[in-house]
């Protein structure tokens, strides 16, 4: 059954993606990521010596600071910081630089703004997947060692029961449930396909983070997972194309 979305997309279509790397001069790594009108800028500083008090000094520590577009920092921002931090911790190789801190600062540039002031406070925003994608690209730009990349996507459940990918803010307000899903990227491998396994399960079935709001049935959630995973393959290919482009094209050979 065809769903008519406000901006004319089909149920499985993503908004236009744009990613640029190395945009800030002073940050050790930076990236901006935009999906449609939602735009987030991430900057990475580090690794710097020393960890915070409650952190394990035998591993590298990642610290996330979330800066909203307007307003003061409150509980929602702290929650986003925690989600982004846990996601990034699972993709970084934390044993390489023990006793160091890497700071990731996420700045919301534009969040698909709705004009009505009251609605802004009541609605949730599409920022989290955008922020995770931007933070991952910024970590790559800074040269932090990563196990693989993270690709984040949002799926929402429309009233009719259809799964919509990458909803705009208006669509998100009308849905009864949505999920933010983060998958590892698709990697190219010299090994024959299907042989990459982590603890006995194929890597293609992995999921890093899932944040859900609202009530949905288990079947609907599994459908969201399936659609999200398929879309993350396209985003993986986009990341692979756009990430190395900032490197200088001519290589140097040390004498």
């Amino acid at each position: 059954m065809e769903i008519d979305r406000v901006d004319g997309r089909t149920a499985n279509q993503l908004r236009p993606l744009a990613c640029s790397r190395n945009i800030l001069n002073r940050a050790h790594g930076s990236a901006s990521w935009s999906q449609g009108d939602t735009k987030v800028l991430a900057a990475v500083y580090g690794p710097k010596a020393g960890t915070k008090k409650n952190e394990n000094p035998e591993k590298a520590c990642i610290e996330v600071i979330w800066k909203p577009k307007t307003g003061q920092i409150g509980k929602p921002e702290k929650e986003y910081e925690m989600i982004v931090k846990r996601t990034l911790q699972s993709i970084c190789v934390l044993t390489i630089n023990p006793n160091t801190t890497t700071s990731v600062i996420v700045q919301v540039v534009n969040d698909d703004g709705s004009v009505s002031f009251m609605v802004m406070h009541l609605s949730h925003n599409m920022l989290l997947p955008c922020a995770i994608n931007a933070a991952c690209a910024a970590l790559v730009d800074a040269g932090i060692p990563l196990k693989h990349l993270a690709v984040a996507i949002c799926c929402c459940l429309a009233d009719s029961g259809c799964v919509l990918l990458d909803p705009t803010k208006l669509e998100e307000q009308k849905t009864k449930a949505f999920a933010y899903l983060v998958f590892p990227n698709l990697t190219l491998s010299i090994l024959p396909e299907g042989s990459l396994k982590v603890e006995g399960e194929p890597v293609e079935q992995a999921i890093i983070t899932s944040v859900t709001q609202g009530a949905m049935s288990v079947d609907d959630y599994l459908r969201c997972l399936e659609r999200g995973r398929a879309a993350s393959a396209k985003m993986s290919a986009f990341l692979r194309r756009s990430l190395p482009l900032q490197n200088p094209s001519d290589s140097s050979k040390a004498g």
Partner: protein
Amino acid sequence: MENKPSGSSPTSFLDQLVVPGDVVLDLSNLTNQTIKLGGGLRQDCDSIVVVKAGKLRFTKPNKYWVESSNKRYEPHAGDSVLGIVVDSRADNFLVDIRGPALAFLPVLAFEGGTRRNIPKFEAGTLLYVRVVKANPGMNPELSCTDVGGKAAEFGQLKDGFMFESSTGLSRMLLSSPTCPVLEALGKQLSFEIAVGLNGRVWVNATTPSTVIVAANAIMNSESLSGVQQRIMVEKLLQNLKLST
């Protein structure tokens, strides 16, 4: 970029752009061989996985590494870097080399260094040093002598101007044959330069305008090809001659 058809894996990643997570070598095919892994690669049981984005490089007989340009430096033994003294202790100077940890420079690691003639470096002193040891989890150790114990240009860099850029630019400046921007500048100007593999470059000349022109030319040259670098240097030097 390349379209990977499903169901087949590429035969080789050499000189290709790789992203973290790609498996580039299968060790089960390479029994009885020793491979040396450089930066950006990690061993994961029987496969070699990429951890940094960049280009995969190989030199014979057995060295693999991922070449990428970053603003931070990963210390390796044998590199020459420019460090800035942060603090001094009884046995070591603490030196910042733009890496994940501060490096230690023993107070006796100078040619003819004894307890009686310890140099007095204040915080902020710029030094050209060699990395002696860089083990994971430990602070790197530096030295102001070469491997044979001679001073060999290591030590404090006085006057001049130091600027920071990326490690890729440093490697380009140190490559042989001489990189085009240095060659073009050297034909018309007289200056001295120290390049650290950690992305710091120091330039010194007799007049400030020469220093500024040389530094600007080097900073601009990272993303330019050889021909573009020469054209850029020509333009800068023309402006310099017009203004003097």
